[in-house]
């Protein structure tokens, strides 16, 4: 009989052990949640994405885990909740942030724990200067972290000329995409795009630079978005092709006598 009780205890221990060993950790989740703070708060209101307070009670756990790991695939599959959220939040798709399943579980444990406590009071935002923001965007004033200026990868209707880069998205309407001052400021300090995170996660821009950018993007938000950068395609590529033609003219002039020394006297053509 005694051995029977011990067997039961051993069985219970075996069932509980994996739960202890592999249970989600809110502490680890808080660290992993840094990947989310550009767009989400827990109890401080929506930014580019929804406020996640009590989300663990509102949605199915398995759905949440998959959504955190591969939001792009769920959107592509046309998941009804995901599609609804996309529509609700200015059509900004949640990017895959390279979160593992274990991290996703930790994040959810952190959100659950943080939902019960009052959020820390937000720091007042710094006031920026749109002119300095433009200089930083164009690179006329270098970023303090030594990173390339925005114009290297991003277009915005305000800058004119041949425009900005095309590696990243057009930033003309960034201000409204991120829901105004607060959302944009946080997003700039914690870039949500995986490509940008490669550079800026280790060396973020400074808070005052984020404030200057926010002021500048508030201004560009008034401008329309140019779908195609015609200036670049006509003037930029056109100049390139013209340059190539000039090179060929130059080559034919430099080597104009190349057949006259030997070939034509010897071969006759």
């Amino acid at each position, binding site marked *: 009989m005694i051995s029977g009780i011990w067997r039961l205890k051993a069985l219970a221990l075996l069932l509980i052990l994996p739960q202890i060993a592999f249970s989600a950790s809110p502490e680890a989740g808080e660290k992993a949640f840094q990947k989310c703070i550009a767009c989400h708060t827990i109890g401080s209101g929506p930014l580019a994405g929804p406020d996640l307070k009590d989300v663990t009670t509102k949605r199915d756990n398995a759905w949440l885990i998959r959504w955190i790991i591969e939001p792009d695939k769920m959107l592509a599959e046309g998941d009804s909740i995901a599609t609804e959220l996309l529509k609700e939040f200015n059509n900004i798709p949640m990017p895959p942030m390279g979160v593992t399943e274990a991290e996703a579980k930790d994040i959810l444990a952190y959100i659950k724990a943080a939902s019960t406590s009052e959020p820390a009071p937000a720091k007042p935002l710094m006031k920026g200067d749109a002119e300095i923001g433009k200089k930083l965007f164009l*690179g006329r004033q270098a970023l303090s972290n*030594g990173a390339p*200026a925005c114009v*290297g990868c991003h277009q915005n209707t305000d800058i004119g000329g041949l425009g900005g880069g095309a590696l990243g998205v057009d930033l003309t309407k960034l201000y409204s995409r991120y829901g105004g001052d607060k959302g944009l400021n946080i997003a700039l300090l914690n870039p949500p795009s995986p490509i940008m995170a490669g550079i800026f996660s280790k060396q973020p821009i400074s808070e005052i630079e984020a404030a200057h950018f926010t002021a500048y993007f508030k201004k560009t938000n008034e401008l329309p978005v140019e779908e195609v950068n015609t200036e*670049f395609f006509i003037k930029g590529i056109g100049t390139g*092709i013209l340059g190539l033609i000039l090179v060929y003219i130059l080559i034919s002039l430099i080597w104009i006598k190349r057949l006259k020394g030997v070939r034509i006297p010897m071969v006759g053509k």
Partner: protein
Amino acid sequence: MTFSEFMFGVFPYMCIVIAIVATTWRYVTDKFSYSSLSSQFLENRNLFWGSITWHYGILGVLAAHLVGFLIPGTILWWNMEPVRLYILETTGFVLGLMALVGLVILIVRRFTNSRLMVVSSNMDKILYAVLFIQVFTGVLTAISYRWGSSWFAGFAAPYLWSIVELRPNVSLVENLPLTVQIHILNAFVFILLFPFTRLVHMLSVPIKYIWRPHQVVRWNSRKEILGPF
């Protein structure tokens, strides 16, 4: 290990190590094969229009990549004024077009001339394919994902340095567009092919010709050339 980690963190080392060992081996065992195997005697007219633009174009583009790798801060300093950025990008674009058009002429020349087909090996064909992919994706990147001269300093230069420092930082490149990733990986294939193809002529360029005194060639007894027979 993910696929990206292998391709950007391991594959480059495989290519570099094989290239160094094989280049040394080929030099030790077959020194006089370090040649471009010129086909100028077999066909010269089309070669002229392809080879000149190809070589000046690709040397300029490679030099620009090297400057971006060695002193990325200088490129960022130059690009601080958008007009200077546009000048640099357009110059790079012209050099890229020169390389692309020159290479296409050389490929067409090699595959349409029966005399050249005889002296072309399978490795030549593979090399042409790799070079075309490299230059085409480079020009496509310049058009589709401008302005590379700026973002090279942010992604490519630190990634390449991370390879040199033996601690590859795959996160810098694993999310870049596919065209750019193909360009990076194909560059390592190019390094891999180096000792196995006529690319070795890059190490036997007669650079001394640039500064050696000129030579005067005189006829001892010149006879009248009778002209074409």
